[in-house]
C-alpha cells in the first residue's frame, strides 16, 4: 500500500499563498521545519487520514490563529487530484461535489460516491482550476482503525456509467417488464421453482425444531450484574 504524502504548507498568517502546504506523491514523510526557514511543509497522507477530517476548499484568506499549531485547521494544496481522492477516502457526496465545483465539474444528484470519485480521478486540471486550497479540521479522536486505503480499479467515465444506469433502470421498469411478460412465456428450466423439499429435508427441519424447543436443554442462569 502506498504511503504517499500530502505536501502541506502550514499557513500561519492570513497571507496564505506564501505559506501553503503542499501535497505531493513523491514525499513520503512528514517534514517539520523547526528552523522556520521555509513556509512549506509536507505531511504523510497516512497522518492526515488518521488525524484530520476534510472541511472544505477555499481560495480566500484564512485567519492564521485558527491554523495549526494554534488552531485546529490545516490547509494544503495537491499536486495530483487523483492521488488525493484515492488517498483520502473519507469524502462524501457533498464534499466531492464541493471539490468538483472548484474544478468546474457539475455532478447530477443521482451519481453515486464511486462515480463522483471516478470523475474526479479522471479529471485533468487546467489552468482555470486555479490554486485550490484544501482545508482540514483536526479530529477530536484520531482514527485508529483506518490506516490503509483500498486498491481501486481504474476510474471509469461517469457519463458512460450514467448511460448504463439509465438503460438498466429502463430494463427494470415496470412497463418494460410488463411488455416482456406479455409476450411468449419461456420457462427457464434451470430455475428451481417450485422449491419442493424432500422428506429428509423436512425431517431435518423438524429435528432442528425439536432440538431448539427441548425444555431439557433450556437451562437458565442469572447475570450477577444487570437487572
Amino acid at each position, binding site marked *: 500500500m502506498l504511503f504517499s504524502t500530502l505536501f502541506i504548507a502550514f499557513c500561519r498568517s492570513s497571507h496564505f499563498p506564501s505559506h501553503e502546504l503542499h501535497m505531493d506523491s513523491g514525499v513520503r514523510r512528514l517534514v517539520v521545519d523547526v528552523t522556520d526557514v521555509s513556509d512549506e511543509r509536507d505531511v504523510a497522507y497516512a497522518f492526515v487520514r488518521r488525524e484530520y477530517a476534510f472541511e472544505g476548499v477555499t481560495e480566500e484568506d484564512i485567519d492564521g490563529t485558527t491554523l495549526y499549531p494554534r488552531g485546529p485547521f490545516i490547509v494544503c494544496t495537491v499536486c495530483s487530484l487523483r492521488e488525493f481522492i484515492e488517498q483520502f477516502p473519507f469524502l462524501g457526496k457533498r464534499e466531492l461535489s464541493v471539490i468538483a465545483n472548484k474544478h468546474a465539474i457539475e455532478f447530477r444528484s443521482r451519481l453515486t460516491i464511486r462515480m463522483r470519485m471516478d470523475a474526479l480521478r479522471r479529471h485533468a486540471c487546467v489552468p482555470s482550476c486555479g490554486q485550490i486550497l484544501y482545508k482540514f479540521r483536526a479530529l477530536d479522536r484520531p482514527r485508529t482503525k483506518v490506516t490503509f486505503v483500498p486498491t481501486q480499479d481504474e476510474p471509469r467515465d461517469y457519463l458512460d456509467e450514467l448511460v448504463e444506469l439509465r438503460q438498466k433502470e429502463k430494463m427494470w421498469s415496470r412497463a418494460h417488464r410488463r411488455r416482456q411478460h406479455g409476450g411468449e412465456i419461456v420457462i427457464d428450466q434451470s430455475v428451481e421453482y417450485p422449491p419442493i423439499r424432500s422428506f429428509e429435508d423436512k425431517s431435518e427441519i423438524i429435528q432442528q*425444531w425439536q432440538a*431448539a424447543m427441548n425444555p431439557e436443554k433450556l437451562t*437458565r442462569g*442469572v447475570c450477577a450484574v444487570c*437487572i
Partner: protein
Amino acid sequence: MLCVFEDCLLYDVTPNEQMLRLLRNECLPVKSLPTTYNLQLYHCAILQPRGMRSLDSIADLRMCSKCQSALTKKNPVLPKDAIANFQYYGISELPDEVKEAILTASPFEVMLVALCRATVITHHYQSKSLRGRLPDEVSQRFNRGNIAILPQDPGALRSILPPAIDDIEGSVCVVFAGGKFTPTKETLKRFPPVLVSKRKVKCIIDWLIANNEWYKSHGVTFSAENLETLVDSDGDSGVLRGIQIHHLPNEGTADDGGSVNWDKVAEELVMENVAYMQGDQSHRSRQVMKATALAHALQHKPFLVNRSGSTLVNDDSPCLLSALFPHLDPWGIGGFNHPARSGESRISLERQVKNLLRQVDSPFESDSLFSFICWNIIQKRAVSNNTTFSISSARHHSLVEDLIKNAGAVHTLAEKFERNADTKAETQEEKHAVQLFHELSMVTKNLQGSNGYKLCRRNEIRSLMRMYGTPAFFITLNPHDLSSVLVAHYGNIPADKWRSMSSYERAVFVAAHPGAAARAFDAQVQAFLDIVVGFRRGIGLFGKCEAYYATVEAQGRGTLHTHMMLWIERNPNPERLRRMMHADPVFQENVLSWLEDLIKCELPGETEVQSTEVEKP
C-alpha cells in the same frame, strides 16, 4: 429481582477490585445495602446473589455478554443496565413487618400511602363469568385511557398522609357486576378485598417517612386523625369511607346480601382494576382540540401558561416511581431519571421500564397499574415528539393566508365547540374554517398504533413488493401458550410442575405472567424464522426466503400471534405464474403438489376437532 438468560449465554468472570469498585453505588442508604452476601469482601459492589458462585468468598461471577464486555474491556465502565446503576430496590432489606405489609398491601392501601396517583381507579368485581366467555382470571385484560399524575393532596394537604377524606371522595369506585344480591355497606365489612388495615397503612407510612428519600424531602407527616376518619371501623380493618359502591344487578336480584357468605364470595370473585381519565379519541374530540389550538395560535396567546395552585407532577420527576409506587420502590433509590446518574450511565425511562419488566418474578410485571401508567407516559412522549401537521404542498402558502383571513371565524367556532362538540358551522366563514380543519391533517408516523404508523408499515411492505415482487406466502403463526413449556421456562417454574397443571391453572399462570408468555412467543417466532423459514440460513421449508415482514397482534385473551409475509426466491407474480402453469402441465403439477405439500388443513394423524375451552374446575 433478576433477569435470566439462557445458561449458554452467560460467562464466568473472575472479579477484580477495579471491576467491583465500578459496581458500587455510594448514593444508596446504608440500611438498604444487600446483606445476602459478604458485601465488604466484594468491595460494596451491588450484585445479584443468584449470579454469584460464592456468597462468602471471592469467586467467579456469572455475567451476560453485555456486562462482561463493559467490565472487562481496556477501560471498564459500569454497564447501563446494572442494578448498581440505580436499579436496585432493596425489598429484601426491609424490616419483616414492613415487608409483609408492603407485599400484602391492597390497591386501596397503596393508594393511601402514595404521594400521588395517576388515575382514577375503579375496582370492578365480576362474580360470574358470562356465558360463552373465558373466566376473567385467565384473560390478560387491557386498560385504555390517558394517565395524568395528580398529587395526592393539592395545596396544604400535600405533605400529610393518608390523605383526607375529601381527596378520596370521587376517586375510588367499586363496581359489583352480576350476582343475586345487592352489596350494602354493612355486608362489605365482611368482604376482605375492599378492607383497609389501619395497622398496615400506619406501618408503611411511618417507615416511608423515616426511610424514603422523597418522602423525607417532601416533609410528609402522618395523620392519625385522617386515618381514623378514612377507615370506617372501630377495629383494625374496615371499609374506606368516601368510596363509591355501585352494583350492576342481574335480573331478579332481590337479596340484600345479608345472608351471603362473603368470605366464600371473596374466594370466587375476580377483581380487575380499570383505570380511566376523562378524554376520548373520537374524531369529534380531535376536531374540537384542533379548533381550540388554532384559535389559540391565531390570537397570539402564549404557549406557556403560568398558573398558581396545584400542578400535575412532571413525568420526568426523579421521585415519580417512588411517589406513585411506594410499594415497588420503598427506599426511593431507583427512580426514573435519577439525578445522581452520571452522563454515560444515564438511561431512558423506556429502557428502565423494560429492565424492570424483564425481571423474573418481577413485582413490576405483576403490578396491575405499573405497565399501564409507564406505557401511557411513553406514548404521551411519543405523541409530543412525533406529531406534525401536514397539508398538501399546493396549499402551503394559501392555507396560511386563509387561516389568517378566517381567524375570527376559527375563534368563534372553537368557542362553540367548547360549549357543544356537536355544534355545526352556520355562517359561510365558519363553514370555510371547518373546511380548513379538514385540510390540516395530523401525522404521527412514529407513534405506535396511530394511523400514520400503520401507513408507514404499509409503505414498507409496498417497498418490499417493489423490490422482491409479490409475496409467496401469508402465514399466521399462533403459538398456543397454554401448551408451551417455554412459558414455564420463562415464568421460572419447573417443567414438571407445568405439565402437572390443569389447563385452567396454566391459563391463570399465563394471565399473571404476561411477560413470560411474551418471551416464550418471541422465542418460538424467532425459532420459526431461523429453522423453518431459514431466513439468511440457506433454504428453508418454503424455499429460499428473500425477505419477510411480520406484525404482532394480541387476541381477545391477550395471547400474541403474528401475521407474516414471505418472499421466496424466484417466485413469479400471480399473473406470470398462471401463464406458466397454463403453458406447461408438468410445471402446473409441480406447483400444485408443492402447495399441497406445504398447506394442510389438519395436523398429521388427526381427524377430530379438539376442544381448547378452558373450564374452571
